[in-house]
């Protein structure tokens, strides 16, 4: 080994040219809080990596502001080493990340460096592909419409706010309402989903506590979900530059799997903190502040990121990249600047409400405010059949609920509707980290909307559901659950079998 190293060094020394050549050079003229102002290097590219030669090695930085006589650069390394007067050189490389299947199961930072003490990611780095962090989104021609579902395993979402592969669905709500829990359930369910091929999940933690990221890694590891998950972490302790780059790195990793013909889901947790880190950088770069001191291109920042989510056409391999951005609201105010921006960019939102959360409705999805603009075309036929009626029943229930508080005398029909609505709401409750597979969701919801729960006490609904699924799995797997899973439809025959087995189950429950 030592011999190899010496031989290699010898060769390098022998082939070393020591002729002084003219080189382009820049000089640091100002530095503060992770930002450097550099004079010279007038030929530098936007988003180019520059290196600052410090006393203790080179520090990379990202050319961001190309001005008339200077460059505003974001320092990506240890900014305390950077001093005025140090020399800066161009690398000719635009910011990129090394990606490959070896990344699966790893925790990396936005520059692709491992954070999990599991050693180097790539045994042969030359075989890994370089993906630019900033890339153009696939064009219209390269895309096709969303038609394959992403099953989250959450009954309320899969039934009423369905998500398709290639869609951008926002998860929005106050702190502590279960936004990350839904994202985690989605990741966990990918390993269990039998309907379509499993998707690679990329969880991007932006400005999160390190303890939270560690907890998420542990949950995923214990559930065996790390086998298909990559975590990109820029915690609260990371500089704003890394927090700003994290979602772009996550997206680049997702794009790699999409372009290889696979499916990927990227979760950006959360874009509110991302916007704040971008605001910090922009103000330090002296870009003019706009509303709430955010820079003028804050909309473009998020739109260009989310626009990279796509379902590619068959000619392009047919892969997909689904984006699940998360936004944290303050006191449920979804009309603030960043929430409205991201709502308008995405193809729908899942709105979580703290009131519902405290009432015990978990997941606390507000079905009235939540929408999915493209997902319904990706929903399986079986789910469509039950979901249509479920939505209607719940809408009627919400309307009638208001009357209950005023009128005590209600006619039988209204009473029945309220009773059923109550039961359906109870049926949609679900513990976190317990995603339900799609065929089990279909049978449970079928039982709910067809009145099989009407005489079951409200506090026994959960038990009813668990026992029903167990019963069907053991006694009628092939005819009911297996048939739905295989065909993704609820054919007349399967429906008949389901009805008879439900009646059978009711007798023993």
């Amino acid at each position, binding site marked *: 080994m030592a011999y190899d190293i010496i031989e290699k060094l010898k060769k*390098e*020394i022998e082939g*070393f040219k*020591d002729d*002084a*050549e*003219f*080189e*382009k*050079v*820049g*000089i640091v003229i100002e530095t503060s809080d992770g930002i450097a102002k550099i*004079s*010279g*290097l*007038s030929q530098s590219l936007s988003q180019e990596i520059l290196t600052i*030669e410090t006393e203790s090695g080179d520090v990379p930085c990202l050319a961001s502001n190309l001005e008339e006589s200077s460059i505003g650069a974001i320092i990506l390394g240890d900014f305390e080493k950077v001093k005025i007067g140090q*020399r800066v050189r161009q690398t000719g490389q635009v910011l990129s990340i090394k990606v490959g299947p070896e990344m699966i199961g790893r925790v990396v930072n936005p520059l692709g460096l491992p954070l999990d003490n599991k050693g180097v990611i790539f045994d042969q780095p030359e075989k890994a592909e370089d993906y630019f962090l900033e890339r153009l989104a696939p064009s219209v021609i390269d895309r096709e419409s969303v038609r394959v579902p992403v099953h989250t395993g959450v009954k309320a979402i899969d039934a009423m706010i369905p998500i398709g592969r290639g869609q951008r669905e926002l998860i929005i709500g106050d702190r502590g309402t279960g936004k990350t829990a839904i994202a985690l359930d989605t990741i966990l369910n990918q390993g269990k989903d039998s309907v379509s091929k499993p998707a690679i999940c990329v969880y991007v933690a932006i400005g999160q506590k390190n303890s939270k990221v560690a907890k998420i890694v542990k949950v995923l590891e214990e559930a065996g979900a790390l086998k298909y998950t990559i975590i990109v972490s820029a915690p609260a302790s990371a500089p704003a530059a890394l927090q700003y780059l994290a979602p772009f790195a996550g997206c680049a990793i997702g794009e790699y799997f999409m372009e290889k013909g696979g499916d990927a889901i990227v979760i950006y947790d959360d874009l509110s903190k991302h916007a704040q880190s971008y605001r910090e950088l922009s103000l330090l770069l002296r870009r003019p502040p706009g509303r709430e001191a955010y820079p003028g291109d804050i909309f473009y920042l998020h739109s260009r990121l989310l626009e990279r989510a796509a379902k590619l056409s068959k000619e392009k391999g047919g892969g997909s990249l689904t984006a699940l951005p998360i936004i944290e609201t303050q006191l449920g105010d979804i009309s603030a600047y960043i929430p409205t921006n991201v709502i308008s960019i995405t193809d729908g939102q899942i709105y979580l409400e703290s009131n519902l959360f405290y009432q015990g409705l978990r997941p606390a999805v507000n079905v009235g405010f939540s929408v999915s603009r493209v997902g319904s075309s990706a929903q399986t036929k079986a789910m469509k059949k039950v979901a249509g009626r479920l939505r209607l029943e719940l809408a009627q229930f919400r309307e009638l609920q208001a009357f209950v508080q005023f009128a005590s005398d209600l006619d039988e029909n209204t009473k029945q509707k309220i009773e059923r609505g109550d039961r359906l709401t109870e049926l949609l409750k679900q513990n976190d980290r317990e995603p339900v597979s799609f065929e089990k969701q279909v049978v449970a919801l079928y039982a709910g909307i067809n009145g099989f729960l009407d005489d079951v006490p409200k506090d026994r609904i959960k038990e009813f559901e668990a026992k029903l699924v167990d019963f069907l799995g053991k006694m009628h797997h092939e005819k009911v659950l297996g048939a739905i899973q295989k065909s993704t439809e609820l054919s007349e025959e399967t429906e008949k079998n389901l009805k008879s087995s439900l009646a059978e189950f009711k007798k023993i429950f």
Partner: protein
Amino acid sequence: MKYSPKNYALALAKSLEKAKDEKPLISNFLKLVKKNGDQKSFPKILEAFKKIEIKKNGGSQIKIEFAREASEAQIKSITKKFSRKDWIETSLNPSLVAGVRITFDDERELDGSLNRKLHKLFK
């Protein structure tokens, strides 16, 4: 309003162009800088003014750094290679270890120092 060093330098250069007698103009300029409380940025103003003047004359700002104290003859042999229009500054920089580094207009450099060679070798 706060004036930038570049603005001061530009204003001075422009007014010197027309002036017949430079002395009162320069003394007025110094008074103005003092009145505005910008004495601290005087070195920056001077640097900016130097750049403007060199550019106007069609020359370059050349900084020659020696690793060790250079002899008169050595300095002369290097400086005579440049034109009269160029502004040449020499300085001592022990961090170069050995050799000379020449920087043109803070944009391009010809680095013949040992420090750079070692840096390239071990990169």
